[in-house]
């Protein structure tokens, strides 16, 4: 890193043997390498969290609430048969008693009485049958039974003419249910914690931000390169802590760690503490990243680059940096208190000891709400870049977007209470509801500006642009469905239901992740110097779009119809929608797999990327693809705005390919 020796090779250039390379990457202070390391770490965590999500979706394919169910396909009216309160010998197909220790002779089979009303109409299949023991009370079945079930009449002892082809499934007794639910709870906690703390929060800033923020500013590096590396190691340490809790048996607190549940569950185990400490440690990584970016933006802009000459991505990352610095320490002390509380049994949050669980929620959401904007703001920044570059159009309302970023960052600190409308005092709920709507204004302004930018542009549809449009679609839905949640009367119904789940997935996944993937495609040629297969990537994007909407739009319906979130099981009427949602999640998986293969193919056999494949005007397109070790051969000078497409030929582009109309230049002169 000494200023003495300059290497003019690409930053990806090999440093010798394998171990030399590993050592080089492990000790690098180059923001590009750190960005790439972050990128792969985050993608790995995304994979882990995704697996947990799929497991959750599979669990929700069917409700386990109905423990013993079989499909009756009798020839006789089953109604009569079952109503007669017969004793049944339940046998396997080969005639041996099925699980005879559990289902002894004399076990009564009784229809689900409510089914009687259905019986007259359509009891050909799908009748639910409870298997009761002699006391008429406990369900004793614990196994999955498949095969035919014969039902005998206890009076005559003869088998009735009717055969019921039965399929018993589910894990029927309460302990088994609890065990199953327990696994489910651990899975969704894992999914939530990984996706929030380890994927979405660091996703854009720590990977793409790290790589491109100094490039866009024309700087050689971030302000504190060694802190930057440290933040990556902290990230890895925190992730190891959090993920090691799975190895120890998993955590079932939910990613929100609400007290008193989180302070009392698994009281004898250290794993909850591990998960909490993991989140705590990850906070430091987040703080260091944000702090680094703020100082970089303040101090390391290229000569001639004023605040309003910065690309809007930088503005967005800068705004989210402010939130990271101001909000993260509060989650730090919260989690610290939680750990104290678990270990030494202090009672700040535990009502049994005089504390206040609602205080915990305030502590928690004071961080966790602003951090929602840490997640989405850089995503919005990416979208701004994508739309401007791929429309070759001056962004509409530059200052409005820049100030909207800052405005969102500011307002984010005074709206956290909308997560707590069902637990807050009425005065506070009213105030927070009113303030919550403030967030909608800068957000709406941004969306209008993006759509406005398309007007009279010169728009190419490729994967990044497709993702920008997908973002506009999904994020608009996510934003608009925030309205019923901010509205007090409707939130009382929708709070903690699948409506909320769908809403924040539309914002977090439909917003941040879509922008993230779009951004990766957009900057892929710059980062790795290779082009990717456009058609295949677009196929992936379409699959992701379809899968995403199928998965999550159904969940809006589920929520409005009253399906609470974090349920391992549910009442039957929700099953259809859950099945649709699960199907959607697999389409989503297919989309991601396509993307993965596109990336791998590009790295292995991609065509060499030009320095400026899309015709961008910001500084990163000035550098080589991939950039050399110190970014630029000569320090760039800011001579035009980041989006002056109508008057400036993009770097590395032939003016013949970009014939700027004379009237544009004339207008620019007068401007």
């Amino acid at each position, binding site marked *: 890193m000494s200023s003495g020796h300059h290497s003019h090779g690409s930053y990806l250039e090999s440093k010798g043997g394998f171990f030399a390379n590993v050592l080089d990457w492990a000790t690098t202070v180059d923001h590009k390498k750190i960005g790439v390391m972050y990128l792969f770490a985050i993608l790995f965590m995304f994979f882990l969290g995704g697996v947990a999500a799929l497991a959750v979706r599979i669990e929700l394919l069917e409700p386990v609430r109905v423990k013993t169910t079989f499909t009756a396909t009798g020839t006789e009216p089953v109604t009569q048969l079952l109503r007669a309160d017969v004793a049944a010998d339940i046998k396997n197909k080969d005639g041996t008693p099925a699980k005879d220790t559990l289902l002894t002779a004399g076990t009564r089979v009784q229809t689900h009485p409510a089914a009687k009303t259905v019986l007259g109409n359509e009891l050909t299949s799908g009748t639910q049958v409870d298997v009761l023991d002699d006391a008429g009370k406990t*369900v004793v079945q614990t196994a999955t039974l498949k095969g035919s079930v014969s039902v005998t009449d206890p009076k005559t002892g003869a088998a009735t003419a009717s055969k019921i082809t039965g399929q018993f499934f589910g894990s029927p007794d309460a302990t088994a249910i609890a065990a199953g639910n327990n696994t489910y709870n651990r899975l969704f906690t894992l999914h939530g914690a990984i996706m929030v703390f380890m994927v979405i929060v660091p996703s854009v800033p720590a990977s793409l931000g790290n790589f491109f923020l100094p490039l866009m500013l024309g700087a050689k590096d971030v302000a504190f390169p060694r802190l930057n590396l440290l933040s990556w190691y902290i990230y890895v340490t925190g992730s190891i802590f959090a993920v090691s809790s799975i190895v120890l048996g998993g955590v079932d607190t939910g990613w929100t760690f609400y007290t008193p549940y989180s302070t009392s569950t698994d009281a004898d185990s250290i794993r909850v503490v591990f998960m909490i400490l993991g989140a705590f440690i990850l906070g430091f990584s987040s703080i260091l990243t944000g702090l680094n970016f703020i100082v970089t933006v303040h101090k390391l802009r290229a000569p001639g680059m004023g605040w309003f000459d910065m690309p809007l991505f930088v503005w967005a990352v800068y705004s989210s940096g402010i939130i990271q610095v101001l909000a993260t320490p509060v989650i730090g002390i919260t989690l610290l208190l939680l750990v104290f509380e678990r270990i030494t049994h202090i009672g700040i949050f535990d009502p049994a000891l005089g504390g206040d669980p609602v205080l915990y929620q305030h502590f928690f959401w004071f961080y966790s709400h602003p951090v929602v904007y840490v997640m989405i703001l850089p995503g919005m920044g990416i979208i701004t870049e994508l739309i401007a570059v791929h429309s070759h159009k001056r962004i509409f309302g530059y200052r409005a977007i820049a100030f909207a970023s800052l405005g969102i960052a500011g307002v984010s600190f005074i709206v956290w209470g909308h997560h707590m409308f069902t637990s807050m005092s009425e005065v506070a709920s009213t105030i927070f509801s009113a303030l919550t709507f403030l967030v909608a204004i800068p957000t709406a302004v941004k969306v209008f500006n993006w759509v406005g930018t398309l007007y009279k542009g010169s728009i190419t549809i490729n994967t990044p642009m497709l993702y920008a449009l997908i973002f506009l679609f999904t994020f608009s*839905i996510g934003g608009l469905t925030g309205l019923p949640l901010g509205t007090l009367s409707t939130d009382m119904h929708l709070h903690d239901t699948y409506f909320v789940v769908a809403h924040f997935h539309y914002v977090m996944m439909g917003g941040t992740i879509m922008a993230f993937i779009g951004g990766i495609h957009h900057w892929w040629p710059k980062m790795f110097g290779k082009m990717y297969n456009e058609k295949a990537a677009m196929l992936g994007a379409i699959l992701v779009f379809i899968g995403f909407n199928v998965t999550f739009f159904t969940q809006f319906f589920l929520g409005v119809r009253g399906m609470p979130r974090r349920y391992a099981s549910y009442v039957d009427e929700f099953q259809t929608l859950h099945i649709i949602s699960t199907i959607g999640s697999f389409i989503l998986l297919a989309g991601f797999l396509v993307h993965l293969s596109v990336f791998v193919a590009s790295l292995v056999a991609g065509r060499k990327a030009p320095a400026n494949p899309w015709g961008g005007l910001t500084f990163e397109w000035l550098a080589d693809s991939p950039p050399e070790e110190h970014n630029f051969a000569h320090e760039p000078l800011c001579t035009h705005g980041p989006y002056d497409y109508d008057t400036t030929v993009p770097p590395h582009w032939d003016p013949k390919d970009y014939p700027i109309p004379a*009237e544009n230049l004339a207008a620019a002169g007068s401007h």
Partner: protein
Amino acid sequence: MSDRILFMLAEQDVFSKAWLRAPASTDVARDTDSMFMWLWWFCVVWFVFLMALMVYWVIKYRRRPGTVAPKSASHNTPLEVAWTIIPTLFLVYIFFRGFHGWIEKIVAPGDAIEMNLTGARWYWSIDYPNGAQSPASTRIGAKDIPVFYMPAERSVKLRMQSQDVMHAFYVPDFRIKQDLWPNRYSQMWFKAHAPDGTLKHPVVSNDAKDEVAKALSGVPYEDHWLFCAEYCGDEHSEMAGIIRVVPEDAFNRWLDAIKNGTGTPAEIGQAIWKLRCSSCHTVDGGKNTGPTWKNIWGHEAQMMTGKMIMVDENYVRESILNPQAQIVMGFQGQNMPSFAGVLNDKQITAVIEYIKTLSDMGTLGDPAHPAGMDAKVGTPGTETKPGEKPADKPQ
């Protein structure tokens, strides 16, 4: 007004049928629904408008090779001000409308019946005004789900508390939800519509008691799910209940029916006496296997050993749990079984209360403390704790 049109749409349109599984079952919930459907149309209009513009412009202004986009405005202040102000106005309106509906949901009317609801891992229980708990339950899968009868067209206010971790009381059909904490009360109220048969969940009650069944035979009812909406652990998803709305008169009949075994302490004591004690002990001074209960409270009785013992709480308690410890003169050889494990503390206290009412030296001695005093302040079920001195001891 366009508002009105939207509300009308919200009432009957196909979209509200798609969104809402069933019509709301309370007035305030209907207000919530119309608010929601209003918001839905509001969102649809904006969304379709934005997406249509986006798609249209993307197609219209697609890139043509070798041409550069014409110079266009980088900003337009009036337009930007307009699209800041207009949404703001809408948002103000939305806030106030939501606030209005919400206030109605949280402030209970003065004539509401108050009940206590307790959430614990993982069940709900409600104490009715007469101190009884609902004996009704239905079996869903492996779990008995409690069935709570509630009067129709009558405001019911629940005072709620959790026993362990946080829970949330959520009745989707009423569109209400409120968290429960340990150690602190929260409140919620509703006034359910009369059952019209449109809402039936596939559940049935296993009412254990005949008289309960009798009280409700032929009565129309409507069931509503009660869910726990705040994550509370392993059986969070099994923590359900059923709110069964019946006409008010049927509800009152049912309430009387389930009172058996509950009620004021003295009434409970009397019921226990009927079931367990009346075969040996009379209450009218008549002779039987055991001593009569009339006028023993507060009097001294001679024991088999010749010792005189004042009949007080501790004596009665001892006699119930360990009958052979002190035997009243004249009743030697009568082996009263121990009721330890048969009667719980609450029931023993109830028996004591009942015995008091039978004595001229008991509470009747002080006319201020007649039997079932609790009932007069509307709080049956607040029995004296065992081991604690009764608050109304005459001395």
